[in-house]
């Protein structure tokens, strides 16, 4: 069963965002990890880099495929999840725990353009 977690924001391209004040934690969804299969490599962004919404901030690679991760919001990369370097499979184990990067939000309005869990669930069901 594909899990969609309550309280997160979602994109069409299967990223999630968890907002804590001005900090936005970004990861890929359970739907994304399920379709990719065993994840064996994560290319992490560089802390301090500025990203615009829609830009590629990371690449998640499974045995068979590489998948771009797009920034759901604009801002500055403040932190990256270094644990994913050695244990990329954490994304398969729990996609909503295994955040990839934390971005300092630049424009709060962008959050309103993201989906809530109910809308995202509909997207997943439609495939």
């Amino acid at each position, binding site marked *: 069963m594909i899990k969609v977690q309550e309280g997160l924001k979602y994109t069409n391209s299967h990223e999630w965002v968890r907002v804590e004040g001005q900090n936005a934690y970004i990861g890929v969804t359970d739907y994304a990890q399920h379709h990719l*299969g*065993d994840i*064996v*490599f994560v*290319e992490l962004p560089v802390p301090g880099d500025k990203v615009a919404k829609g830009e590629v901030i990371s*690449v998640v*690679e*499974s*045995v*068979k495929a*590489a998948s771009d991760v797009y920034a759901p919001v604009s801002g500055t990369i403040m932190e990256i999840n270094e644990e994913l*370097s050695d244990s990329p499979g954490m994304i398969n184990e729990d996609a909503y725990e295994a955040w990839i990067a934390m971005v300092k939000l630049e424009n709060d309005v962008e959050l309103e353009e993201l989906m809530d869990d109910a809308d995202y669930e509909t997207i997943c069901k439609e495939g």
Partner: protein
Amino acid sequence: MKKTPLYEEHVALGGRIVDFGGWALPVQYSGILEEHLTVRKTAGLFDVSHMGEFLLEGEKATEYLQHLLTNDFAQMPSGKVTYSPMCYPDGGVVDDLLVYKFDDRKYWLVVNASNTQKDWEWCNAQNEQGVVLTNLSDSVAEIALQGPAAQDILSKLTNTDLDALKFYHFDPRVEICGFRVLLSRTGYTGEDGFELYTDNENAVRLWRELMKAGQEWGIKPVGLGARDTLRFEAGMPLYGQELSTQINPLAAGLGSFVREDKPDYIGKSALVQIRSQGVKQKIVGFDMIDRGLARNHYEVFSKGSKIGFVTTGSYAPSLGKNMGMAFIDVAYATVGQEIEIMIRDKAVLAKVIKRPFYPNNYKK
């Protein structure tokens, strides 16, 4: 898409079906890593019914093979399986295949699924010896049982003495749970194992019996994904990647299958010349030094100049490392040489290493 007789089994087992060169086959069931490691540890079961099988019969069958293929079949005993490239006159590769010898007048060729039609036309066009060729591909199912527990599992289903069946040998008439099977000790994983050829209508029951017999060893069905990572670690070429019209067998490191000490055959003069002049580019193995995962077709550089391309890039599950094979200029093809793989416009450092990455566990 074409379906093998085991299609419904794959769906029932949760296989994720993909289009593989026109065939509907599972890329994975439980997951590529788990399936891969299960084959290395105990055993896995593969549906390879998409492979092509040609029967050739006639007085001049051996003579025909001697002309068609680069390996030597003059002294080949019955019951033996021999690997060979099949080349064009310029030394480029039509396909690589297995030859099964029943007797001097009867052989099987087992060819790559994606090349079956091309090979069929090629084999017919070269037939100056009046050999009778029959394409059995649509009526023969093939199941591979691979891994260190393969013999223990299979011995539960047959009275045949499996110890007597040596590596790269076959028995055309083995009874396995009541079905007549052509059984060979061959595979594409670097592990001990068997390949079972049978009529399509027996495939489902045979598959189920094998799954059941393997239960106590934790046997798993294995998809195309792990089939590829297993052969990759074992250093085996895949047609279209390490062998092609542009990559001849000498460049692929398969020189021992290109014989000069036999009469003329297709590609001989070109290959003899290439060997005497030395290949310009060859296939090497590499290991990533910096972080990155190389993929097929990525370009390879050394100090700013392009020296070749990646033929297979993957995570090697048994070794826990990102590795690859590449077709590069011979000047850089020495073990220990540092090379750069272009990954998303960034040069990522790797180094040339020996193949295979994973030592084979064949029972000789």
